[in-house]
């Protein structure tokens, strides 16, 4: 290898980009919880996909063995990452591709921008991709005068609506048909003004809008679901055919791939092509999968560029426990079973990666480094730890344990455990009855802080507790005060009479 290893290893730096929300999870979740339309849509979507997934995974007698194989292959990849990355790079180059390495979001954006500009185009077609969303590629291209056009129907809805995706798999699931119709009428150039809200007609409008662009496209940008180290093969899994269009019609194809997407051999696709579609959409197989190796003479793009992205992945790899999150194949099964995600939707997580895996991956990629005020430090608490995500994950990522580990790291990083201090204070208060009464009186002050029956923030150290959860407002009276009141005495007398009649 050429990157010679010298001396003491240093912890790799965290990533940057769309990996941090503007506000903490509980604050963002409060806003989202009030959006009943979104909750209804997300609820319906997650229930439907959940049921389909259980049905088609139950069809395979060897489902558990496939999961074990998938988990082990990913673990194997991470343990041999340096050699596999170099093997992969060589294989892509040998087939006529060019490989670029990006340390972080800014570097990846700069590389892609230069490559697009080299083609002379000011427009680039895009296949839905988590990696390019993570680095904020579209926004960056816009500042450089290049228009990125999302070609996946849901991504197009999000883009035209100047909105954010709310789900990994169905990014526009928070929108219903009439909203989509309005977005198209408002923002889709050349749209039929008589367009109604029938999904078939809406899909058809997108087909017409994009067809002309596909045929004239000079350059397209994609992500990748898998990269095969042995052969240099890349793969994109999709449904609509927009992926096939982008991957084959333009002269130049640029693929941005997180370096954890590697799998060792072509034969390993046999595992992931079974795990991914069944976990993701609940289908036996997705309608279209494309696999390509470098440049194929007389078939598809004549120029192929691969951008290999770190952006916090090596920092995640340096954590013995947390690195398991790099096994993720972005199927979104964990989102669909998560009771917290089902109620808040994806926006509350503030990052490209929502749901249980996002709560783990986001703080690992980008860190929780500004203490209690970093929105990312609230993400490990955005879970009920019910374990449903672990059961659903096709590559057996133990998300609940990773969340607990991150909570631990967060508390360690904060130098003192705020929750521990709370507990110490509580046990001191409960140790004598006099103190307890005083504490209960003091707690009534909480009513001053609360609106709508919930306390929003407690003063430190209690804020570490309330930053991730609401506290019920204490009652107007303490229990003792109530017991001594005429109302209390009447209630107790009633209870005695009830008991006596039995």
């Amino acid at each position, binding site marked *: 290898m050429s990157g010679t290893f010298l001396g003491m290893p240093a912890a790799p730096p965290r990533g940057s980009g769309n990996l941090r929300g503007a506000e903490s999870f509980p604050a963002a979740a409060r806003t989202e919880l009030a959006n009943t339309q979104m909750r209804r849509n997300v609820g319906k979507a997650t229930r439907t996909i959940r049921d389909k997934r259980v049905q088609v995974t139950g069809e395979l007698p060897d489902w558990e063995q496939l999961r074990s194989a998938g988990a082990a292959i990913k673990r194997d990849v991470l343990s041999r990452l340096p050699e596999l990355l170099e093997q992969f790079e060589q294989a892509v180059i040998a087939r006529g591709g060019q490989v670029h390495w990006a340390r972080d979001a800014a570097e990846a954006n700069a590389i892609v921008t230069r490559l697009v500009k080299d083609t002379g185009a000011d427009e680039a077609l895009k296949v839905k991709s988590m990696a390019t969303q993570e680095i904020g590629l579209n926004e960056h291209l816009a500042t450089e005068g290049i228009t990125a056009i999302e070609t996946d129907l849901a991504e197009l809805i999000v883009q035209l609506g100047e909105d954010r995706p709310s789900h990994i798999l169905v990014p526009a699931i928070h929108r219903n048909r009439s909203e989509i119709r309005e977005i198209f009428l408002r923002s889709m150039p050349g749209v039929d003004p008589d367009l109604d809200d029938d999904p078939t007609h809406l899909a058809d409008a997108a087909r017409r809008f994009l067809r002309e662009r596909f*045929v004239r496209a000079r350059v397209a940008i994609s992500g990748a679901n898998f990269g095969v180290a042995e052969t240099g093969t890349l793969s994109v899994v999709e449904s609509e055919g927009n992926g096939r269009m982008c991957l084959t019609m333009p002269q130049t194809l640029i693929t941005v791939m997180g370096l954890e997407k590697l799998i060792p051999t072509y034969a390993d696709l046999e595992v992931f092509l079974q795990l991914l579609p069944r976990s993701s959409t609940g289908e036996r197989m997705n309608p279209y*999968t494309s696999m390509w190796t470098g440049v194929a003479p007389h078939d598809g793009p004549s120029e192929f560029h691969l951008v290999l992205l770190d952006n916090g992945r090596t920092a995640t790899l340096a954590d013995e426990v947390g690195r398991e999150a790099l096994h993720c194949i972005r199927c979104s099964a964990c989102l669909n079973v998560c009771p917290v995600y089902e109620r808040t939707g994806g926006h509350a997580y503030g990052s490209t990666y929502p749901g249980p895996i996002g709560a783990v991956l986001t703080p690992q990629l980008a860190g929780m480094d500004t203490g209690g005020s970093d929105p990312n430090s609230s993400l490990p608490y955005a879970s009920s730890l019910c374990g449903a995500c672990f059961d659903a994950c096709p590559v057996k990522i133990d998300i609940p344990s990773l969340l607990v580990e991150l909570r631990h790291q967060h508390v360690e990083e904060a130098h003192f455990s705020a929750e521990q201090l709370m507990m110490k204070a509580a046990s001191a208060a409960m140790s004598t009855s006099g103190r307890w009464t005083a504490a209960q009186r003091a707690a009534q002050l909480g009513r001053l802080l609360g609106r709508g029956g919930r306390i929003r923030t407690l003063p430190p150290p209690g804020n570490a507790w309330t930053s991730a959860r609401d506290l019920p407002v204490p009652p107007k009276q303490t229990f003792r005060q109530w017991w001594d009141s005429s109302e209390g005495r009447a209630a107790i007398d009633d209870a005695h009479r009830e008991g006596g009649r039995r």
Partner: protein
Amino acid sequence: MNARDTVLSRVHDALAIAPPPAVRVPREYRRDRELPAEQKRELLVDRLEDYRATVHQCVAADAATTIAAALGDATRIGIPAALDRGWVAEFGGEVLVDSADIPAARLDELDGVVTGSAVACAETGTIFLDGFSDRGRRALTLVPDLHVCVVALSSVVAGVPEAVARLEPTRPTTLISGPSATSDIELDRVEGVHGPRTLHVVLVLDS
């Protein structure tokens, strides 16, 4: 250090900070399965129809008639240069023989396309096209709205591992499982966004 060397040395550092154990991959899932032809046929037809592809079954001698029927009222079709011309002998319309220099805009004028296939997977209803011989380049099976795909029963295998094992990694490969579809609007399935909206599979039983 350039980005490549930096990233690679970060990977080394990460693994030095927390050394991973060597991993053995358990391969106890089903591989190398053989199924009787009749079972493969039934499974494949069931899966294809579940994806709303139309399946026509015939013997080789009737392939041309079946293909012509599957083409319906198409008047202009495209075929890969290596396609068995006998397959389109009963088709009365215009036939464009594809080559690499035909631009996508011309493919957009075609009503349909007829191709062969490399392998098909019964358990998932997936057909593999590999840009080789009579399978055609990728754009040909993508741009026209109707795809009539000929599958020989002898090329059908039981599951995904058996199918992947038959592929040639360097060929640009497309897996199709039914026509183009989306469920992006309120999870209602709509067929045909950007790829062919109609997929007809002609299953040739005795080839």
